[in-house]
């Protein structure tokens, strides 16, 4: 921050000096602090997670018995569509982006991200787009064409209601936010690393974020285009996808999966990063094979753009295409396997502390391996012709997304909660949560492999009693109750510990990276002085080989002595996001007035943001707040 502040803010008036951190609702709505933004990402992500969980619950109730009537066919289709869309776009990604916001700037020794206001805009676009999508229930029904929304079923002819418009425009809005997050973190990681933090000293979570951001930047544009094309088809009578007019339904499918496959790596890459942080700290030794870990993250990121057809083996591209994409998909297993074995070796011969965070890591490894293995089975194109669109696939992606992503998110939660709130999550509740979720998850989802093998297609609202699917479906639904009990305990733990948890010191786990070198919770400016990094695992190096405190970077990196230059808070991002949402409603509801108002506000907002100079502000560090290692 300090380095670029002199370069960026050449405003007319001098920055004001502020000492106290502002509180209250307005301060949250206008904040540009990456830690607050990160917490809001987590909060909103958990809120949407709850909604998607309720949808899943209804889905499983309906499928508990054959020929069941808990929900209608039409409602069922809305439920599974919204469940998928929500989990991917409004829960999974925001929770991970939440961690990225909380952790990455501190891990690289920065005071904020490169574009703090853009960061706030990303947040509000995500929340705006997400809430907007949910209001579709009040405007004639939610989207109901599945989360990948294939045409022609999602076209105006077969889905005449506004549901799919909410999908197109809601995801477009939150997607723009995600794209900006990608750009923001690329810039942040490239430009704001503390002196000495060379590329091969970046913590693994930062590497994971870097590759994730690259994936976002390259994968979201195809989605953006796809959504635009469909918006034009549906709202303005274009024919990009209509067969009769020479358009192609496969164009949608290809653009979607060119985005969609990297998307699943956007959802797992940061999870890998979290595991790579927790495992070494809790095993009291460095990450085994750091360089290969970096290389494998890059390889996975690269390969993830080469495999999209494996979602469409049954669309008839022929043996050549299918073989090539089968091989490239199988290849991803190699770098992924390297990561798993490197984590295992980190623990092997180490001293593993089996606290709750580590329980989640173990749960992650077991379930993620199952999900990864079933993934390889799906990659074998001829076998996939059987698996595709069956419950085997449903089992597979829940193993990677819950057993992989979500378990890692929980590991990260137990690991970083004390850092950002100053209090521990309760370990007893945590272990109850773990065991209930772990068991409930497997009872719910393992039988889905069986159901797939027994020929149950996904996305069916009911099944015939004579297909032999009843038993495992009912087992699966039973599992949901155990799983939900665990989730409730987790929620109680978070809410209770936020105010009453055991107080945490700055470095409760004997951590290795820079976030453990500053107070818990960190001050708004993170670092009283920019640290000098002298090795991989910067904080560990100073604890073991230095004198137990971070050394300040050379003078040039700090700005005027005794002051810290920070960006000021602003309601502009919130205003812009609201304007875009209003414009979106205008399009969906065919209301020209609303659209004009919305776009006019957007123009004003952009103009204001571009041509008003923010001089920033100077913050005086509280006292000499300095963390010293105890031993």
């Amino acid at each position, binding site marked *: 921050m300090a380095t670029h502040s002199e370069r960026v803010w050449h405003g007319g008036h001098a920055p004001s000096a502020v000492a106290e951190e502002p509180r209250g609702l307005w301060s949250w709505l206008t904040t540009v602090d990456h830690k607050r933004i990160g917490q809001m990402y987590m909060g909103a992500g958990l809120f949407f997670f709850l909604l998607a969980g309720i949808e899943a619950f209804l889905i499983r109730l309906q499928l508990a018995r054959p020929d069941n009537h808990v929900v209608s066919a039409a409602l069922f*289709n809305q439920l599974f569509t919204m469940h998928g869309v929500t989990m991917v776009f409004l829960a999974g990604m925001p929770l991970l982006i939440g961690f990225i916001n909380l952790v990455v700037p501190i891990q690289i020794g920065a005071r904020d991200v490169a574009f703090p206001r853009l960061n706030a805009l990303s947040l509000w676009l995500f929340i705006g787009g997400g809430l907007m999508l949910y209001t579709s229930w009040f405007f004639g029904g939610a989207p109901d064409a599945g989360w990948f929304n294939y045409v022609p079923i999602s076209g105006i002819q077969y889905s005449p209601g506004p549901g799919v418009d909410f999908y197109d425009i809601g995801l477009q809005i939150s997607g723009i936010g995600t794209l900006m997050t990608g750009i923001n973190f690329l810039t942040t990681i490239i430009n704001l690393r503390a002196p000495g933090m060379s590329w091969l000293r970046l913590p693994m979570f930062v590497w994971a974020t870097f590759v994730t951001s690259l994936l976002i930047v390259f994968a979201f544009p195809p989605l953006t285009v796809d959504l635009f094309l469909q918006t034009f088809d549906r709202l303005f009578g274009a024919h990009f996808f209509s067969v009769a007019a020479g358009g192609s339904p496969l164009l949608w499918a290809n653009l979607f999966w060119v985005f969609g496959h990297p998307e699943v790596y956007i959802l797992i890459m940061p999870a890998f990063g979290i595991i790579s942080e927790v495992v070494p700290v809790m095993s009291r030794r460095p990450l*085994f094979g750091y360089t290969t870990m970096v290389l494998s993250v890059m390889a996975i990121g690269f390969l993830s753009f080469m495999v999209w057809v494996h979602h469409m083996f049954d669309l008839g591209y022929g043996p050549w295409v299918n073989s090539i994409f089968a091989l490239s998909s199988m290849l991803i297993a190699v770098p992924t396997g390297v990561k798993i074995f490197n984590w295992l070796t980190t623990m092997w011969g180490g001293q593993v502390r089996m606290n709750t965070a580590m329980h989640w890591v173990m749960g992650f490894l077991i379930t993620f391996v199952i999900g990864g293995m079933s993934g390889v089975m799906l990659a074998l194109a001829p*076998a996939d012709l059987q698996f595709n669109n069956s419950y085997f696939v449903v089992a597979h992606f829940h193993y990677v997304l819950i057993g992989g992503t979500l378990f890692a998110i929980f590991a990260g939660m137990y690991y970083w909660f004390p850092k950002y709130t100053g209090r521990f999550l309760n370990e007893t509740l945590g272990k109850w949560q773990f065991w209930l979720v772990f068991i409930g998850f497997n009872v719910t989802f393992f039988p889905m492999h069986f159901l797939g093998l027994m020929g149950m297609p996904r996305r069916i609202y009911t099944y015939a009693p004579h297909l032999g699917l009843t038993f495992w479906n009912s087992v699966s639904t039973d599992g949901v109750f155990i799983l939900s009990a665990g989730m409730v305990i987790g929620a109680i733990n978070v809410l209770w510990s936020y105010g009453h948890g055991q107080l945490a010191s700055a470095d409760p786990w004997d951590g290795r990276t820079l976030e453990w070198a500053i107070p818990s919770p960190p001050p708004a400016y993170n670092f009283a002085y920019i640290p000098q990094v002298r090795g991989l695992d910067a904080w560990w190096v100073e604890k073991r080989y230095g004198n137990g405190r971070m050394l300040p970077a050379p003078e040039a990196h700090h700005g005027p002595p005794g002051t810290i230059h920070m960006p000021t808070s602003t309601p502009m991002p919130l205003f812009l996001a609201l304007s875009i949402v209003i414009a979106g409603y205008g399009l969906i509801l065919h209301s020209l007035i609303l659209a004009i108002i919305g776009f006019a506000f957007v123009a004003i907002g952009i103009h204001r943001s571009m041509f008003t100079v923010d001089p920033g502000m100077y913050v005086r560090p509280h006292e000499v707040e300095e963390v010293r290692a105890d031993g």
Partner: protein
Amino acid sequence: MAAALSGCGLVSAPQSMLNPAGPVARDQLNLIYSSMWVMVLVFVVVAGALLVILLRFRWKGQKELPPQWEGSTRLELLWTIVPFILLALLAVGTVRDSFVLAAPSGKNVLRVNVVGHQYWWAFSYPGTNIVTANELHIPVGQKVELVLTSADVIHAFWVPRLGGKTALVPGRTNIMWIEASQPGLYRGQCAEFCGTGHADMRLLVDAQTPAKFAQWEQEMEHPVVQPTTALAKEGEQLFATESCSSCHTIGGTRYAGVVGPNLTNLAQRPMIAGNLLPNTPQNLAAWLKDPQAVKPGALMPNLHLSPDKIKALVAFLESLKTPAPTGSV
């Protein structure tokens, strides 16, 4: 592996891919099993390692650190190369099967055109007049090439015991082939989400001995429509006056609508409404009374027929069977 899975009741399920009834599904299952073995092996290694870690490498309050091991090129090469070899083994079968299963080889191939509709299937046999719905007849022991397309949205043809699925894409023709080794009824259903009625878009493949199949072809080529009772005769009239004929074809009559399923020899089919219901007079009556109540989303309109008309129409539909020609075959 197969034994363990059948213990869980997986093999006996009527739509189970683990109980193949033809060469395509059998090839695919072999690939599935060989990959499953590899997967189990990997899982056992990882789970075993975790177990050892949990038993032996726990922190017991030691002050001194464990050896700070940062990497080993040899080990890391090991777990790059070994998975690579395992995958290469699976790759061979994958590529071979991709090509083998792409199109049927040889001359003696029966071709059937399949068109997907929301929410039913149309089958026609090129070179004949035969058009039927929802129930595919094939001869045992012969390769059958399915030429697939769709009239509306994307569907997928999937009969797990005979082979994997292929999508029916509007504006495009896809090809797949199946072969049944033994006679029987094989169940399947649409495997690409296609709307409200997707779950109810079911399929039946009736694999018959070549002789029986030839007889069926005869019956379908030369259907006889001879309603005998007065009620059925009235139904035949109603079929035109109530606009059924604008959507449905019945071979052997002048009715030639093409919007809905072909009803030729309907009474000989075991199921109706996209294989949702057994073909009984009660179910037919329920269907005609309110199709959407029977099958949510069905695109046959509710014609608000009076019970008397329904009775007559059912009697007519029940009469749609062609008696086996005596002395044939």
